[in-house]
Every structure is written in structure tokens, then in C-alpha cells.
């Protein structure tokens, strides 16, 4: 079962995402902000991180930068989401794998997740 770390300060959003990930067969952990996510990283060892950008204490961009710097988690795919202009998040673009602007449809988000988690093709 793949493990996803949902980093989201908006409680309702985190709850619904959790429900939808569970329905897709994921094991879900929720962190309320970037700092909380880093605190849980070693314990959860996620296969995927879906993070909001604007959050208290530590934003999603800083969190992604720190994850990339942690040797154990440097390759974990990160999907950044935000209602802000993508240019605001651009400065962190080398630290995440995909950006999805809010409000987004679950189907669009999940299509990206499936691409990120798909095993590489043998050449």
C-alpha cells in the first residue's frame, strides 16, 4: 500500500483528501504545515507528498527544499498545490515534481500522482 503525506493547513481539505486517498487504497498521514511534515517524515517514510504552498510556520516550498536535502527522502515525488499565482511558487520549482493550481479536480490531481508513481519503463 503506497503511503502519502498530505500537508495541508485547511482541516476540511485535508479530511476530504484523506478520504479520497483511502478510497484509492493509499495509507494517509496528514501534516498541518511544512514543519509538521518534516517532523513526521522519518516516521512516515512516504512514497508521495501532496502539499499546499501557503501554510503557517513553514510554507510548502521551504518544506520541499528541506525534503530534497534529506538523503533518505530526496527522491520522494512532491506535488505542490496552491491557489496563488504559480510564479509565487516558481522559486521552489526545482524542489517539487508537479504544480497543481487550486481549485483543482481530484481526477486531474490523481492523474498526475499516477504518472509520478508509475514504475519507470525498461528500455
Amino acid at each position, binding site marked *: 500500500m503506497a503511503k502519502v503525506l498530505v500537508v495541508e493547513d*485547511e*482541516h*476540511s*481539505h485535508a*479530511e*476530504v*483528501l484523506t*478520504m*479520497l486517498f483511502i*478510497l484509492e487504497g493509499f495509507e494517509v498521514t496528514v501534516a498541518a504545515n511544512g514543519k509538521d511534515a518534516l517532523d513526521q517524515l522519518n516516521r512516515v517514510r512516504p512514497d508521495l507528498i501532496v502539499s499546499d504552498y501557503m501554510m503557517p510556520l513553514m510554507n510548502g516550498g521551504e518544506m520541499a527544499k528541506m525534503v530534497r536535502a534529506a538523503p533518505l527522502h530526496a527522491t520522494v515525488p512532491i506535488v*505542490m498545490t496552491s491557489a496563488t499565482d*504559480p510564479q509565487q511558487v516558481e522559486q521552489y*520549482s*526545482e524542489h*517539487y*515534481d*508537479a*504544480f*497543481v*493550481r487550486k*481549485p*483543482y*479536480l*481530484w*481526477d*486531474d*490531481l490523481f492523474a*498526475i500522482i499516477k504518472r509520478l508513481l508509475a514504475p519507470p519503463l525498461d528500455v
Partner: protein
Amino acid sequence: MLAPFTSHVPEVPVALQRLPTGIAGVDEILQGGLLKAGVYLLKGAPGAGKTVLANQICFHHVAAGGKAGYVTMLAEQHARMLEHMAEFSFYRAEAVPSSVYYVSAFTALRERGLSGVTELLAAEMRSRKVDLLVLDGLLTAAESASSLKDLKLFVSELQVYSALMGCTVLLLQSVAAEDPLSPEQTMVDGVFRLRHELAGSRVERSLQVVKFRGSATIDGLHAMQINGDGITVFPRLEAARVAEVEHVINGVAISTGVPGFDSLNQAGGYPAASVTALSGPSGSGKTLLGLHFVGQATSHEPALLFGFYESPAVLVKIAASFALDLEALCKQKTLKIIWQPYGLLGLDDLAYRLLSAVEKTRCKRLFIDGLGGFLSVRAFEERGTPFLAALSNELRRLGTTTLFAVESDDPTGFAVPLAAHGITAMADNVVRLRLQDQKELTRRLVSMGKVRGSRLDLSMRELTLSDTGLLVVPDVGGAADLSQR
């Protein structure tokens, strides 16, 4: 590392796309329909029409290729509701359950509370790819919530769910429409109030949009009806029809059909696409003037008679006694006579029936017999002047030349309703009819009160009745003297 990719952003964000309700009046009020992925509250007392409205929207949505889910939190069975819905023409048995799916959340609510309902919604509706969801029984949910915080959380999660799934949600709540909005209700994207109340011996229904995020709406109370076709909503005419009338009076006149009458003004008849008030007491000749007018119908100038008093058969008979063959015109489809029940319909219902008939018949001659049919509606007292102004503008815009009879108790013809409701300001032209007693004889007199944009003969003329109907006597004789008395 590969550059990150960005999700496809649709040209029109989901949040601004529309979901038409399929109810023309509602879609007009909302300027196109509900916003996709919005959460809307329909509130009203039992019997106000919430369930019918929600089901009608569902069946319209699935007819257009969507999928709808109808979830009740009540203990009652769906079978009974479906039995009632089957009576409406919008209901399609074959759409249930493949396209419209009915499910009860009663057990989930009882056993696991509101979070159980949210889970059920997410699982059931997602697997069925529902993009319109009705949740019937918000009051039940509110009563089951352990705290206001829980209830707000439930509504908040519904909003997130609807946004993530691109699913529009209708919440139905059985409370008096006038109840103030509670905190959780203020969180939704739109609130509709449905009312039904007694007006004399008849029930008047209305719909009001009290909140609608992301778009302007037509404000105020809009008349609503429920019949075999479901719900019909009539946007309040004076708020809905505000487009400027481009048509200008261009000097073209439409013959009155009464010998000697056309020469009373410079235009040579009623100016085309104008509105004329025929004012006078009972028996002064208003209806007959109107019958002459519609009796001139041709395939190029079709006519419509919109009446409240005499039935079409009686009108045809009256006209026939003056050699006006309306029956033949009806058979040729150059004339249509529509009768409306007096005092049974609302203002907007009448207006939209009239405008729809004008559009359908493309009539160039319209006779409304008479204004009393509108005056008898309770709301006229409050809305009369702006309502008539809007109606007149619409008729001008449609290019029809309109006569409407205005009843007056005043035998001198200075009709009270004309002054009381500002009708003279609304009408382009006024024809005054009066009755004058002279010894053993009662004479009919006519004068032009005004003709917009035309010079006119203000003198009073006598109207006489012959075997071929009315005619204006060229020589007024003693009529002018009589008018001075």
C-alpha cells in the same frame, strides 16, 4: 532533475462554468444557471417545492448527459417520493437508477454521525461519477450534529468535496423561508428561498435568490408555479426586462380599422410598434374598437387578442354582428384569440403568457382586453407602474402595435386608473371614449388624448354604430357642445 509539470488549467475555470437548471426562469435569474461545483441551499417550509425543484434539476441534468445523486437523510422511503415525481412530465423512469441515483444516508447518519454521511457521499458518488448531488434533510443533519462546529465542518467538507469532484451540491432544508440564515448556511455559495402563502383564496408561490457568489442575479421575489410539467419560475418582469428599446417610432401607421378614425392624427392610424390606451367607461366602445383593429389582420400583419372577459366564441359572435369575420381570420391563422381566467394568475405569469404569445404569433396588431385583468392581481397595487412600463417596452421591442382597454367608472372617460397608475406616461397614445346623455339619446364620443410624435386633432368626435361597426362621424355636429357640459 526533470522540470516540474503543471496541471492543465481549463480556459474557463470549473468554478465559473455553469450548470443550467433547465428551468428557463431560474436560469434567467441566475444569468445562465448554477455555478459548477458550487454548494447551494434551498430552504422553505414543507410544501414549498424544494423536492420538486431539486428533482427537476436532476432530470434535466441527466438528460444533458450528466449524472445525479439524490441522498436523503430522512427515514422515509425513496419509493414514495419517486411515485410523486412520476406524476411530472420531467420524470424519466429509465433514468433511475443508472443516471439519477437515489440513496439513503439515514443509517450512516444514525450510526456514524455526519462524518459517516461525508464518507458515504465520497464513496457512493465518486464511484458513480455524480456531478450533481442533492442532499435532502439538512435540518436532520443539523439536529444530529453534536455541536455547531461539527455542522460547520460538515458543510465545509461538502464544499471541498464538491470542488475536488467538480460536483454541484444542492442542500434542501425544511424551515420557514423567512428564518434568518444560521452560521453554517452563510458558508454556502448560494441560498434560495422558496415561499408559498395564501393570497385571498389562492396560493402564491415565489422564489428568491438571497445569496449567489460569483455572479449577479435578478433580485426580488419571482413568481413560481408547480403544475404537471414541474416548476415554472417567472423572473420579476420589471427587473428582468430592462434592455433599452432600439425601435423608434418611424412615422409608419397601422390602420385603426374604423372609418374616419385614422385621420384624427397626422400619423394616419396608430403609430407602428406603439402602445395605445383606449380609456372609457363600460359600453363606450373599447372592445369594439379593438375588434376593428384585430379584424384588419392579414398574413403580413397578424393579430392577437389577449382577453380576460368575453370568451373567444363570444367575441367572434359580437364581431360577426358587425360584419367583422374574425372566425375566418382565425381559420386563416392571421388572428389568434387567447382568453385568460380573470383574477387567477399572477402578474408575471400573465406577462410572460402574453409576451410568449406575441413572439409565437409574430403579431403586428395586439389588443389587450383589458387592463382590468392585470389590475385585479393583488401585486398590481405595489408594482403596477414599473410593471406596465416594462411590459410596454417589451411589446415595443417586439414590434407589435398594442391597444389596451382601460376600464373607467367615470362616464366622462377620464379614467381613474389612467391617473392612478401613471398609464398615460407609459402609453404612447391615449384614446379617450366617453358616453354623453342628450335627451333620450346616449352618444359615444371619442377624442385623442395624445399621440406621441404626431400632431393630432384634439377635437371631440362622435362615434356611431352601424351594421358594419363603429365609424367616426365627420361632422361633429353638437358633440363639441355636449362635451362642454
